[in-house]
């Protein structure tokens, strides 16, 4: 069983994992906060482990926008899940790849011998993203609070302007790159333009994503989902963003939302805004032996890459390429791929980039094109477009689901990857034993 990892340490095993259903945001705060979601995945996962939660070494969670009561959300989740006071916990943030970052940190800590047993993953309640007050309003409130007399109050009140009351939608700010001044959707428009990806191709991709998720639900392929229960007695059992009746014709009626009027990217061919969490248990060989743990697979390697923020959707193309070359592998050596569907066009662009000799030479420093990823091996059970992209959670979800896909098809090796707002890519290679 002993195989060294490329980062020079002990092998790292994925024992098991769970995720919540991904729940589409319906314009108001959803029933679960980010910590509730993480707990919804963690409790059943820990319940089926042969060890006690207190025997974990640490809990690492990715989360982009924890609520105001969720500072270091990983610690909150660890305590609420009954891990006890001694299990340490920390939260990581690498924007859309926060969940994968958590796995990477866990991978690294087990490989280098700091930990034996880690609960890691990501959570996001995008519906609970805050509404913020403008700086003008905050400044005005500070003056108001200083007032001691009614006269002072009347004076300060005269300076309150209606525009101060306009709230700032935290979610939109979070999905905008402040350095290049583009929304994430606009960076996707850039890729469509660069690789000449038509609206029709994007919409076809989106329909396919829904069809694949529909089939996966019908066939019971999504066994990693754990039902959520709210305090009102309501049950949430499945990803609710699925549109089984999605067609290209219907999608064609949607207006572009980022580059209004003339753009291609619509709500229908972008990832849905959802709430969800995905958690995995990672273990060293010693821990696997000690507790006789089942093993889903092994994390072989991981890679991060940086690129132009205005082309951030190509991140996977940049992060996955070094993984292949480091291990002397080519596209056919990888049995299945998960590339997070932030935007239909962005996944299509990654495929195009690897097909392009120009791109591979100029941008990836390779001698020739890498070739084409087989569509039948890519996101075979749907992705962000159909089931949504709770930013902190997706990175963990795709790694977990990739392992399920490999097991189901009795395949060996896979790569999961995602693009990261701000111009990065992350990729993780896993294999079954």
């Amino acid at each position, binding site marked *: 069983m002993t195989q060294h990892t490329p980062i020079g340490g002990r092998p790292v095993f994925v024992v098991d994992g769970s995720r919540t259903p991904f729940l589409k945001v319906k314009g108001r705060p959803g029933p679960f906060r980010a910590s509730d979601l993480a*707990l919804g995945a963690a*409790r*059943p996962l820990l*319940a*089926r482990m*042969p060890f006690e939660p207190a025997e974990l070494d640490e809990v690492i969670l990715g989360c982009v926008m924890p609520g105001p009561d969720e500072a270091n959300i990983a610690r909150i989740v660890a305590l*609420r*899940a*009954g891990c006890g006071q001694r299990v340490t916990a920390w939260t990581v943030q690498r924007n859309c790849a926060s969940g994968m970052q958590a796995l990477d940190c866990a991978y690294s800590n087990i490989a280098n011998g700091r930990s034996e047993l880690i609960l890691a993953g990501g959570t996001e309640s995008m519906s609970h993203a805050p509404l913020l007050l403008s700086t003008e309003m905050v400044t005005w409130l500070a003056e108001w609070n200083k007032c001691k007399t009614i006269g002072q109050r009347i004076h300060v009140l005269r300076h309150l302007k209606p525009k101060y009351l306009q709230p700032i939608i935290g979610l939109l700010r979070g999905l905008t790159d402040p350095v290049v001044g583009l929304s994430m959707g606009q960076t996707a428009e850039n890729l469509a333009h660069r690789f000449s990806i038509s609206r029709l191709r994007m919409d076809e991709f989106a329909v396919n994503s829904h069809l694949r998720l529909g089939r996966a639900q019908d066939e019971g392929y999504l066994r990693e989902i754990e*039902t959520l*229960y*709210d*305090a*009102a*007695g*309501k*049950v949430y*059992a499945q990803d609710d963003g699925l549109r089984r009746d999605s067609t290209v014709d219907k999608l064609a009626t949607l207006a572009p939302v980022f580059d209004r009027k003339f753009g291609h990217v619509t709500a229908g061919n972008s990832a849905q805004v959802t709430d969800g969490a995905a958690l995995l248990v990672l273990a060293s060989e010693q821990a696997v032996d000690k507790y006789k743990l089942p093993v889903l697979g092994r994390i072989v390697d991981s890679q991060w890459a940086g690129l132009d923020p205005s082309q951030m959707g190509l991140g996977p193309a940049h992060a996955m390429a070094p993984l292949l070359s480091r291990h002397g592998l080519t596209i056919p050596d990888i049995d299945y791929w998960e590339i997070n569907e932030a935007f239909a066009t962005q996944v299509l662009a990654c495929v195009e980039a690897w097909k392009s000799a120009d791109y591979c030479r100029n941008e990836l420093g390779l001698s020739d094109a890498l070739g084409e990823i087989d569509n039948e091996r890519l996101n075979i059970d749907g992705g962000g477009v159909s089931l949504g992209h709770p930013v902190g959670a997706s990175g963990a979800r795709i790694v977990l689901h990739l392992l399920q896909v490999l097991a189901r098809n009795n395949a060996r090796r896979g790569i999961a990857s995602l693009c990261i707002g701000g111009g990065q890519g992350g990729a993780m290679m896993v294999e079954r034993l």
Partner: protein
Amino acid sequence: MTESNTTSCHWHLERDQAGIAWLRIDVADGNVNVLSLAVISELQQKVDELVRNPPRGLIIHSGKPNGFIAGADIKSFLGMKSEQEAAEFMRGVHTVFDRLESLSCPTVAAIHGFCLGGGLELALACHYRVADEDQGTRIGLPEVLLGIHPGFGGTMRSIRLIGVPAAMDLMLSGRPLSARAAAKLGLIDHAVPQRHLLRAARMLVLDPPQRRQLKPWLKSLNLPLLRPLLARYLRRQVASRANREHYPAPYAMIDLWERNASDPKSMLADEAASVAHLVMGDSAQNLIRVFFLQERLKAAGRDSRFKAQRVHVIGAGVMGGDIAAWCALQGLMVTLQDQSPERIAPAVKRAAQLFSKKLKQPRLVQAALDRLIPDVAGQGVPHADVIIEAIFENAEAKQALYRTLEPRMKPGAILATNTSSIPLQTLTPALQHPQRLVGLHFFNPVAKMQLVEIVHSPQTDEQVVRDASAFARQIGKLPLAVTSTPGFLVNRILMPYLLEAVELESEGVRPELIDRAAVAFGMPMGPIELADTVGLDICLSVAEILGQSLGNARVPARLRALVSEGRLGRKNGQGFYSYRNGEPVKARISAGMTLPADVTDRMMLRLLNEAMACLRGHVVEDEDLLDAGIIFGTGFAPFRGGPLHHVRERGISALRGRLEELARNHGARFTPDEEWQRLQAL
């Protein structure tokens, strides 16, 4: 610090460098501070010493981790031989507390944990009170629950401090308050974190603030013109909850105030006489008996070291779901299994409601919900210390379940069934280790009913019975070991009583009259309404099972007819009564409605006769446990001290004669059990 030179067992007096006297109560031989005669007389010595040599201030605090003072020593009330003796005792305490109160230096009670009854009365005799704001702090005057009222000056001092309405509410309900609630009422001066308790007491002594004054309008309620009005209002309030004949104490309390409100001295004298009269009465003596029965149930399982951390409940119906919620409320990690999430979700909803009601603070509600884990896959089984099966009443289904459970259970885990009708012996063949199966029979509603029957068959390991009892105590319930005979104890005794009520109804007696007769006897709810509440289908099935095995419970045709018409009781809005918003629609009782003279006897004597049969069959160990089970399992008139105690008070031979008479008039179901004769002969 200097320790005083008199001998001390219960009170320890020290003076610090600032000249403050610290009087610590730490009652010898006991882990709870209670005010017995000896403790009071030692307090007297200490107070005398303080009067002779006044300190800069006095702080009274407790050396027991669990609290300040839990109350007067109730045992001493049982031993009193006459009203004069009781009144003498009260007057003695008054003298000590009066001297304490009149110390010229500032006096402070520093309270944590229990501060109840006589404990609070002592604190009220101090000038100031501070209390630990922890959840464990319980401040109140619960005397009324024992059929008496405060007797150590508490009636006068509480009214003087917080006014009639609040003080009467405190004393009439007997409900304990949290430190924060007590501070809000003005009953204590400050609720502080434990780390500041003694510091706060010290600061009050060093810099005593103005003492609390009652608001003028509250004072005015004591005026002779207003008093009778308010007294009448209070009596009406009490009347809706307690009958004067059965529970004289709350009325005595109101009378006491109405007679003496303007004069603290006469009120104290009257208080002593009034409480002495009450304590010697039947109601108080029986309620005190019930208190000790409860203490006895609490002691069960004390010799077991079993402590559960995880509980797995199978079956998320009303019983299973509510048992799971109760366990989570009590701090256990609970997995709740059923066939689908949709079956578990309503239990989660009910749990959320229970938690908000009991815990109030959102943080604690969240934590309790976090401990309740829906578990369709049954992942909790191998981790559970206790597995409670609460699926539908079908022996084959239960056996099949046990076969899959047993190999997955961890060694030493308890396997418990919540069955109310299937004998354990029917279920054990499915088990490799039948000795580990025990019944944990909870009552509906789980959150309200204190009793849990610990059902054991001849095969059940005695240690398992002890462990199961310890578990019941761990979750704050009262365990009662019963044999695995049909109906166990509570349902078996209750059923003939319910069936007789149904019989009366089918003879044409109005259900409202039947219920009123039972309530007049002292039952918490009439039998017809109770049958509707339990569910007529459930009553029918229990009655049939008991009828088969015991042979004396003929099932009235009326019950069968209602069930076949689909009238199932409160749950579907139609039973003997119709229900509107969950409440029965009862006809007004008019003079024209006639009630046969033997209604109460017919119902109650069938209950008592079955109690005799249970005693003869050794369903429980002894008479007292039987009484305890029926009181805490059914709410049987507590002021009567339990069914068998009631039999002895009314006279065994008289009641047996009455049964024989009923048997002649109404049939063999009234034939006295042999046990009557045996008890009579003893």
